[in-house]
């Protein structure tokens, strides 16, 4: 079909935006190389990686099909690792998720503006620390010999506890430190959502005789429900990410039974033991499940009219 308006030819349009497209070149190339090309590298999960040929084995290595995936399921440790990941992630979600919300709800009630600002400033700070720093702090504070916690225990006549080498206290440490590090920063988005609630709703509630907590329950909560929904969906999609950096920096062999998660396993098998094919298969398995979970949770959320798209 001949164009009846040659002025609007595709070249004309493109040249109008030529600078804009030029700006897009580097980012597009970057994403192609570092995000899309590795997707091709996933093929290594289906081929036998040969150290002799190196990366080329992605395309030329012996075809192993689902062999490595079968190995995953027959691996004695894998169910433990999968369960560790899910358990840690669920525990973190259950204990961590409500905290920024509660933090925001209560902080919002504070009328002393100056102190409120101080609290916000200080509580955001741990978010900006690296896990290396926080893990170092934890080791210092929890140390059985010199840690402040154990010093307090001993002064009370209790014996010292090595928190990082006992499975239960290890998990508790992971969860508590995650809360400590993230609650302030995580509350920002809820404080913003609360600020966006129509003030007349509060007035109406007050006129109807609603007390403080009733106002929170009937006005604030529904107001931030969409935000909570989105945050929860995002969380569901990342359920298999239990926090690699934190675990890696704090775990040790005595707590592998509860602390070894999928990502630490992939790291050890892949990087330390050079099992590229096998560990890529594990990673691929993890991504597939993650994808299914994101789609599922979004469908569920759509029923409640919240959602990412």
């Amino acid at each position: 079909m001949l164009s009846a308006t040659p002025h609007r030819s595709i070249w004309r349009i493109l040249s109008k935006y030529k600078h804009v497209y030029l700006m897009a070149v580097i980012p597009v190339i970057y994403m192609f190389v570092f995000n899309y090309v590795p997707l091709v590298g996933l093929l290594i999960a289906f081929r036998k990686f040969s150290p002799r040929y190196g990366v080329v084995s992605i395309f030329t290595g012996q075809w192993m099909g689902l062999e490595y995936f079968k190995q995953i399921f027959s691996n004695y440790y894998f169910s433990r690792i999968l369960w560790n990941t899910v358990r840690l992630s669920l525990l973190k979600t259950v204990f961590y998720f409500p905290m920024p919300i509660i933090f925001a709800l209560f902080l919002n009630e504070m009328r002393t503006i100056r102190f409120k600002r101080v609290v916000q400033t200080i509580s955001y700070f741990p978010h900006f620390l690296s896990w290396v720093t926080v893990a170092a702090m934890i080791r210092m504070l929890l140390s059985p010999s010199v840690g402040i916690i154990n010093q307090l225990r001993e002064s009370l006549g209790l014996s010292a506890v090595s928190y990082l080498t006992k499975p239960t206290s290890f998990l508790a440490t992971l969860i508590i430190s995650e809360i400590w590090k993230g609650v302030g920063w995580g509350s920002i988005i809820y404080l913003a959502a609360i600020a966006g609630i129509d003030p007349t709703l509060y007035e109406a509630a007050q006129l109807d005789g609603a007390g403080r907590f009733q106002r929170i329950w009937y006005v604030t909560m529904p107001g931030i429900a969409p935000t909570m929904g989105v945050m929860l969906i995002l969380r569901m999609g990342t359920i298999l990410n239990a926090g690699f950096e934190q675990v890696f920096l704090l775990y040790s062999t005595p707590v592998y039974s509860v602390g070894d998660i999928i990502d630490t396993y992939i790291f050890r098998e892949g990087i330390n033991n050079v099992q590229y094919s096998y560990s890529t298969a594990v990673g691929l398995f993890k991504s597939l499940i993650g994808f299914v979970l994101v789609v599922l949770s979004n469908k569920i959320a759509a029923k409640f009219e919240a959602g990412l798209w």
Partner: protein
Amino acid sequence: MSKSKLYGQDRVFETFLIILFGLVILTIIIPFAYLIMVSLTNQTNIRAFFLPDTHITLTAYRAVMNPKIFTAFGISVVRTVVGTSANMVVSIMFAYVLSKRDLPGRRGLNFYMVFTMFFSGGLIPGYLLTITLGLKNSYLVYIIPGLMSAYNCILLRNAFFTVPTAIAESILIDGGNDWHVLIHGVVPLSKPAIATIALFYAVGHWNAWFDAVLYMSDSSKFTLQVVLRSIVYNNQIANEMGANLTDLQSTYIPVESIINATLIVTTLPIVLVYPFVQRYFVKGVILGAVKQ
């Protein structure tokens, strides 16, 4: 805003809130206070802090001011400055592209970027790629693999959406091109968001350690966090640092003191920069999070 006094129940509740949040911020302040005290007194026992003959000494910090730390500190600084600059240039450019609603192919580009947030090759293919590109043991591995974060780009894009199109139109009518619109129009009007994203990237660089662990075989190329990590895991290194103070060979500096001093040195830049940028990011995060 009227400052009304609180009475009765409200006053009680307010007191409760102040105590509650006072405790919360104490959980953040006390650990740091303890670590600082250990590093300044070379004592690990809390009781020692109150004894009269416990003095404040800077020996731990002097032990920490050795070439190894200086090098790592310098590398971290350069990495943060160069890396963040590169990040911002690329992210701002692409955010601008994505913010031009009438651009043909914009939805495709959007999808192209968002897709990368959900699907990635994972650790091993990424590792193999980076090695194949010859970035092993190169300083470029600190800059290039993490050049742009899709998430940060989205925040910038949303901020750019709020810039009135009249700005772009008036610049274009005056004979400018999109580069002018970006540099003289959009960027100056999006300062809170840009400051926020720059902070995110900068903190990411300053705190990064895993890429150095993966790709750097030469320990002189390590960033500060990596050195901190190696000190925590290997007391030997800390002891060596303590022993290197030639004029104080008779003084024993506990390993904990050195570790804490290094920790403080690593955290100090963030503490110093933090108050200045703090006022920007609540605005910036909200701007980015609110969809247009």
